[in-house]
C-alpha cells in the first residue's frame, strides 16, 4: 500500500509517507487545502518565472488582486470503500480539488494524503497519440498510468473487450470518434486496479450503453472496497451513487454530508438565485411600463388595450417564492392586477409551455365557470395547484386578463419562467400518478422493487419513488453501502 502526501510544504511534494504499523486510515484525507491560480494578465511574466524558480510557486508574492482563489480551507476524509461526490457550479473548484488529490497540482496550503493506488479519470485518452494504433496506445497509456509491460499484456484482452473496440483496435486512433476515444481511455484507466478512483464528469461522454457499463464497473470497484471521488453536474448520478457529498461554492465548503440533504440544499440555492434574477427581470419590466402598450416592454411579449393590467406575478412553491420545483410540489401562481376602468367582463387566463412552444396546460376563469363580475381598482388572484406534476425541464408561463370574447386587456407572454426537476424516472412533460398492476400469468418477481401496489392501493408518488434508487440495472452493492 503506498501512502503519499501532496502538501503545500515546499520541497517535499509527492514524498512517500512511511507506511507504519498504523490502522488503515482514510483513503483520502484532505486537510485545510487552499489553492490559488495566478491571473493570466500580461506583465507578470518575469516575476512569475522568478517566483516559480525560487519559491516553486506561481502565486507566492502576488497580491490578492493578481490571484484567483480556487480552493480555500477545504478539509474532509474519505474512508476506504466510500463513494464521495462533489457538486457545485462552474468554477467552484471541483476540478481543482480533484487535480490536487490526484497529485497533478500542488496546494498552496494544507495537504492531501492518499492511501493506495490512485487513478484519475480526468480527461480520458489524454496522451493518446493520434498516429498510432489503438493497440499501441493501450500499451503506452498503460505505462503512463503506471502499469508494467507484464501487467499490460495480462490485461490487454480484457481492456479491449471492455472498450468494445476489438474491430478497430489496429487502426490509428486519429480515425476514432470522440466516444471511442473515451471508451478506450476509460478501459485502460479502470484496468490499473486503483484503490482510489477519481472521476471528473467523464461518464457524460460515452453512449448510454457504455455509461451503464462504466457505472457497473464503478459499483464493482466500490464493492471490492475501493474508494470513489466523483465530480459531476449530474445531481441524480451523485445522489444514486454516493454515500456522502460535498457542495463547493467559490472554493469553500458550503455543505457536506448525506447526499440527499446536500443536493437539495444546492438545488434550493440555485433556484433562489434564479428566482432573484427573475424578480429583478420582473421589476425592470414592470417599472418600465405599468400599463400595456406604453413604455419599453417588447410588443412581442406584451399586448392589449390597457383597460386592465397584470402588474406582477410570482410563483410560490410549497408556500415560498421560488422558481424551481420538483415535479409534484404544490405550486401557486399569484397575480397582482389592476383595472384602469371599471370592468364587467373580466377573464384571467394562464398557459404553460416549453421553450420550444409546446403548450402543456392552459385554462382560464371563464371556461372553468368562475364568474368574476365587476372589477374595479386592484386585486390579487391565486391559482393553486396542489401537485404540479410537470416533467423535468424548463417552462414559461403566459398570463393574461381579457374579455370573454378574447379581446385582450393585457396579455403577458413568458411572464414567469420556472424549472422543474424530477426524482422519478419517466419521460415527457407530464408525470401523472400511476402504478402497475399485474394479473393472470404476469407476476412480480421476488426481490423486484418496481411496483408497490399492495391491496390494489396505488401509492406511487414522486417523493416515495425517490426513496430507493430506481430499480434498473444498478447491480452489486455491499451490505454496508445499502441505503434503506
Amino acid at each position, binding site marked *: 500500500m503506498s501512502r503519499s502526501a501532496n502538501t503545500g510544504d515546499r520541497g517535499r511534494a509527492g514524498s512517500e509517507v512511511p507506511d507504519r504499523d498504523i490502522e488503515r486510515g482514510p483513503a483520502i484525507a484532505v486537510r485545510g487545502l487552499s489553492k490559488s491560480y495566478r491571473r493570466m494578465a500580461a506583465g507578470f511574466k518575469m516575476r512569475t*518565472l522568478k517566483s516559480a524558480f525560487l519559491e516553486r510557486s506561481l502565486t507566492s508574492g502576488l497580491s490578492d488582486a493578481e490571484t484567483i482563489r480556487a480552493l480555500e480551507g477545504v478539509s474532509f476524509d474519505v474512508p476506504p470503500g466510500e463513494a464521495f461526490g462533489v457538486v457545485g457550479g462552474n468554477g467552484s473548484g471541483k476540478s481543482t480539488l480533484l487535480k490536487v488529490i490526484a497529485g497533478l497540482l500542488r496546494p498552496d496550503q494544507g495537504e492531501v494524503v492518499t492511501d493506495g493506488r490512485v487513478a484519475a479519470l480526468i480527461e480520458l485518452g489524454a496522451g493518446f497519440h493520434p498516429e498510432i494504433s489503438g493497440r499501441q496506445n493501450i500499451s503506452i497509456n498503460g505505462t503512463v498510468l503506471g502499469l508494467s509491460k507484464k501487467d499490460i499484456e495480462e490485461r490487454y484482452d480484457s481492456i479491449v473487450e471492455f472498450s468494445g473496440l476489438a474491430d478497430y483496435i489496429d487502426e490509428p486512433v486519429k480515425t476514432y470518434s470522440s466516444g471511442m476515444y473515451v471508451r478506450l481511455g476509460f478501459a485502460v484507466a479502470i484496468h490499473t486496479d486503483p484503490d482510489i478512483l477519481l472521476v471528473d464528469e467523464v461518464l457524460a461522454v460515452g453512449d448510454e450503453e457504455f455509461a451503464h457499463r462504466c457505472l457497473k464497473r464503478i459499483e464493482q470497484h466500490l464493492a471490492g472496497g475501493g474508494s470513489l471521488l466523483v465530480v459531476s453536474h449530474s445531481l441524480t448520478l451523485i445522489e444514486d451513487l454516493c454515500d456522502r457529498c460535498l457542495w463547493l461554492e467559490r472554493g469553500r465548503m458550503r455543505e457536506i454530508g448525506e447526499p440527499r440533504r446536500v443536493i437539495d440544499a444546492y438545488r434550493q440555492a440555485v433556484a433562489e438565485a434564479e428566482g432573484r434574477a427573475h424578480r429583478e427581470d420582473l421589476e425592470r419590466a414592470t417599472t418600465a411600463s405599468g400599463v400595456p402598450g406604453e413604455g419599453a416592454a417588447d410588443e412581442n411579449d406584451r399586448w392589449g388595450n390597457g383597460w386592465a393590467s397584470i402588474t406582477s406575478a410570482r410563483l410560490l412553491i410549497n408556500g415560498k417564492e421560488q422558481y424551481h420545483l420538483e415535479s409534484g410540489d404544490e405550486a401557486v401562481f399569484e397575480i397582482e392586477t389592476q383595472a384602469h376602468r371599471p370592468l364587467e367582463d373580466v377573464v384571467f387566463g394562464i398557459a404553460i409551455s416549453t421553450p420550444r412552444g409546446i403548450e402543456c396546460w392552459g385554462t382560464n376563469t371563464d371556461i372553468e365557470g368562475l364568474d368574476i363580475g365587476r372589477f374595479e381598482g386592484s386585486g390579487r388572484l391565486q391559482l393553486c395547484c396542489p401537485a404540479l406534476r410537470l416533467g423535468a425541464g424548463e417552462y414559461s408561463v403566459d398570463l393574461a386578463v381579457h374579455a370573454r370574447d378574447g379581446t385582450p386587456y393585457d396579455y403577458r407572454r413568458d411572464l414567469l419562467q420556472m424549472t422543474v426537476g424530477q426524482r422519478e424516472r419517466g419521460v415527457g412533460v407530464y408525470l401523472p400518478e400511476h402504478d402497475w398492476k399485474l394479473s393472470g400469468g404476469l407476476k412480480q418477481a421476488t426481490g423486484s422493487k418496481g411496483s408497490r401496489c399492495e391491496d390494489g392501493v396505488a401509492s406511487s408518488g414522486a417523493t416515495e419513488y425517490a426513496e430507493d434508487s430506481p430499480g434498473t440495472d444498478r447491480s452489486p452493492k455491499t451490505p454496508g453501502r445499502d441505503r434503506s
Partner: protein
Amino acid sequence: MLQTLKTLVRFRSLLGSLTARELAARYRGSALGFLWSLVNPLMLFGVYAVVFGVILEARGGSSTDPYPLFLITGLFPWIWTSASLLEGAVSLSANAGLIRKAVFPCEVLPTVVVCANLVHFLLALPILLIALGWGRFEGADVLGPATLLLPLVVVLHFVLLVGAAMGLAALNVHFKDVRDLLGNVLTLLFFLAPILYALADVPNEKLQTLVRFNPFTPFALGYQSLLFRGEPIGWELWVEMSGLALAALFLGTLIFRRLEDTLVESV
C-alpha cells in the same frame, strides 16, 4: 540531479515505449518510412559537401584526406544535437494534454526526444562508418583503433543533450520565446563550431577563442579525432567533454526541478 536520474531509471520502460511511439508515429504513413532518417542528413551533407568542399574549396585542417569525410564526422553528431534541442525544448508544451491530465513524470518527455534522435543518429552511424571505411580503403588516413572509444563520446554527448533539453523544455513552458531564441542560437553555434572547417583554419585568434568556447566544439573535436583522424583523444578534451556534460545535466535538472511544481499550471 540524482533524483531526476532515479526517476528516469525507474520509468525506463515508459521511456522506452514513448521513444518507440515517437519513432513509430513519425514515419507512419510515409512511403520511405525509416529511410527518411537517413535521407535527411545525407541531403544536408550533400549540399554542404558541394558548397563548401567544391565551390569554396574548404579543407579539413592540415589533413590531406577528403573534405567530405571531415564534414560528415562533425555534421551527423550536430544533426543529433540540434534536432534534440529544438524538439526537446517544445516537448513539454507539445504534450500539454498529457501533462495536465495524467500524473506522470514529466522529465521523461525531453529525454524521449533525445533518445529518439539518438536512434536516428545510431542508424546513420553505419553510413558514416562505411564512408570512412571506404576512404581508408582508398588510402585515406582515417579511422584507427581509437575509433573504438566512440561509444564513450556518444554517452557524454547524450548526457549533455538530456540536461540541456530538460532545462530548455522547462523554461519554454514559462517563456515561449525560448524556442525562437534557440533556433537562432543553434544556427550561430553551428557556424561557430569546427564542423564545416577545422579549428586550426580559423585565421583570427580572437575568432578562434570564440569557437573554442562553443560548447559543441569539444564534441566536434572528439568525434573528428576518433573518426576522421583515428587518433585517441587527449585527456584535456575528455575532461572538457565530461565537464560540459555534467554541467549541462546539473543545470538542466536544477532548472527542471525548480520549475517542475508549476509546470502543470503553466503548460
